[in-house]
């Protein structure tokens, strides 16, 4: 059975049922699963005979503040090098308890990618061997890529909001 997107959808629906949501855009299929099943999905895609998604291209996070109860999204881009098929896997977690199972057991290369996502968004990867900040200074106490924080350092004294185009007196 060749690995086309229809066959992939079929196999995943058989295995995961209704909890998986599919979307296809710009030549890539996206599969969204609840966060409790993400590790099972990644392992299935890795180990199963017909799947073979053994290469993790990318792991990143997105913050959607308007989606109540599902604010953070972790996006995995997988690649089957033999059949040359790409797949995007997403999972949503709420802001109060942003816990996602770590993918480092399946893909050791996810180690630093998860640390970067933690550093930027504060998503807690359960079971990660060494979850600490990687790019920002260790003393930083907030997660900068979240939408509520500004680009500039909050402690700036020489420039104010008006100069950054946000409100001010004008």
């Amino acid at each position, binding site marked *: 059975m060749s690995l086309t997107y229809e066959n992939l959808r079929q196999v995943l629906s058989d295995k995961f049922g209704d909890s998986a949501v599919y979307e296809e855009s*710009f030549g890539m299929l996206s599969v969204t699963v609840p966060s409790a099943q993400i590790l099972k999905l990644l392992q299935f895609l890795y180990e199963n005979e017909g799947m073979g998604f053994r*290469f993790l*291209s*990318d792991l990143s996070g997105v913050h959607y503040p308007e989606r109540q109860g599902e604010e953070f999204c972790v996006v995995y881009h997988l690649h089957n090098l033999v059949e040359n098929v*790409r797949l995007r896997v997403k999972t949503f977690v709420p802001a109060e308890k942003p816990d996602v199972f770590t993918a480092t057991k399946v893909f050791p290369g996810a180690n*630093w990618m998860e640390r970067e996502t933690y550093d930027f968004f504060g998503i807690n990867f359960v079971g990660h061997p060494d979850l600490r*900040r*990687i*790019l920002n200074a260790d003393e930083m106490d907030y997660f900068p890529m979240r939408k509520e924080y500004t*680009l500039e350092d909050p402690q700036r004294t020489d420039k104010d909001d008006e100069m950054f185009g946000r409100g001010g007196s004008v």
Partner: protein
Amino acid sequence: MERNHIQLSEESLAKQSTTLNLGPTHPATHGVFQNILEVDGERVLSTEPTIGYIHRAFEKIAERRPYYQITPLTDRLNYCSAPINNIGWHLTVEKLVGISVPKRVDYLRVIIMELARIADHIVCNSVIGVDTGALTGFTYVFQYREKIYEIYEEICGSRLTTNIGRFGGFERNFTDVAWDKIDAFLREFPKAWKEFEDLLNRNRIFMERCQGAGPLTPEMALAYSVTGPNLRAAGVDFDVRVATPYSSYEDFDFKIPVGSTGDVYDRFMVRNMEIWESLGIIQQALEKLKDLDPSVFHADVPEFYLPEKKDVYTKMEALIYHFKIIMGETEILPGEIYHAVEGANGEVGYYLISDGGRTPYRLHFRRPCFIYYQMYPEIIKGGLLSDAILALSSINVIAGELDA
């Protein structure tokens, strides 16, 4: 401000091994990253890398900038081969919006990207030479990087951080001077590169230094998501130009050089051979360009490509398009896209989520150096200290791409 950068553990004084700080600023590490090594005599037992010393928050800055203003940001990711990043970004947005560019633009982009790849490999290979003590190669081939810079200057005006091209093509057609320079480069560079290879390829001292240093098995490479010349030196022939061709790469005929052991010598040789393949690709592109209309250098997309000045002064629509593009009010349709190009170090990916506004909602750069630097502690474990330094420069870590 007096933070101690070396965190020593409790039993440090009692243990037998030495803690060595290969600090953020070091002449042999080409970039700003720190490695705290545990060495036993000359053998490296373990290392702990620390990065983030040049974190410039690209992804956060990109959320504030209209799409055109992100191109200068992409320059500064892998600054040794900046045009590849620029063109990769333009390809991403063109795919999202649905612009199809003419063939001639594709071939011109291929020429520029291959020149950038040659420039990056020149830096990496000559610096491997410098780290083994062979300074001659470095001073000799760096002159050819100046020639490549002159070609960029003819086309976009700038040497290093090029900001080359626009959505849909190039900002100006390649002039005759640019073509002359490209021809001169193709004539003179192969001779110089042959001399560089004669100096180092079969040099006994170089081979004994490099073979066996920092070996990388294919399983480890795939597990750590390594891409680019490092992966190919380990034995896996994955090249994004062949797997998912972009910008008409499927029309070109080139080989993918693959190594066997993944050590420093294999990485050096793979990069050498990639330079020869790139020169072949540029030659093929020049042949193919002879049959195409030489006045075409951009797609006809007035919403994204600045109209000509004489139209801006006379026609109303051109004035409006010009205004909207310059003020960054171009609306991109909502969508989510991941596009990858083959950078000099591996797969450079752009994950763009657009919500229909003038700036991206989320832009994530898949930076190859960041991802494959994780395997550095694994490949130097048990090796000598000098091999560790050599392995570091052979995996070609560029600090801008590491931290973004």
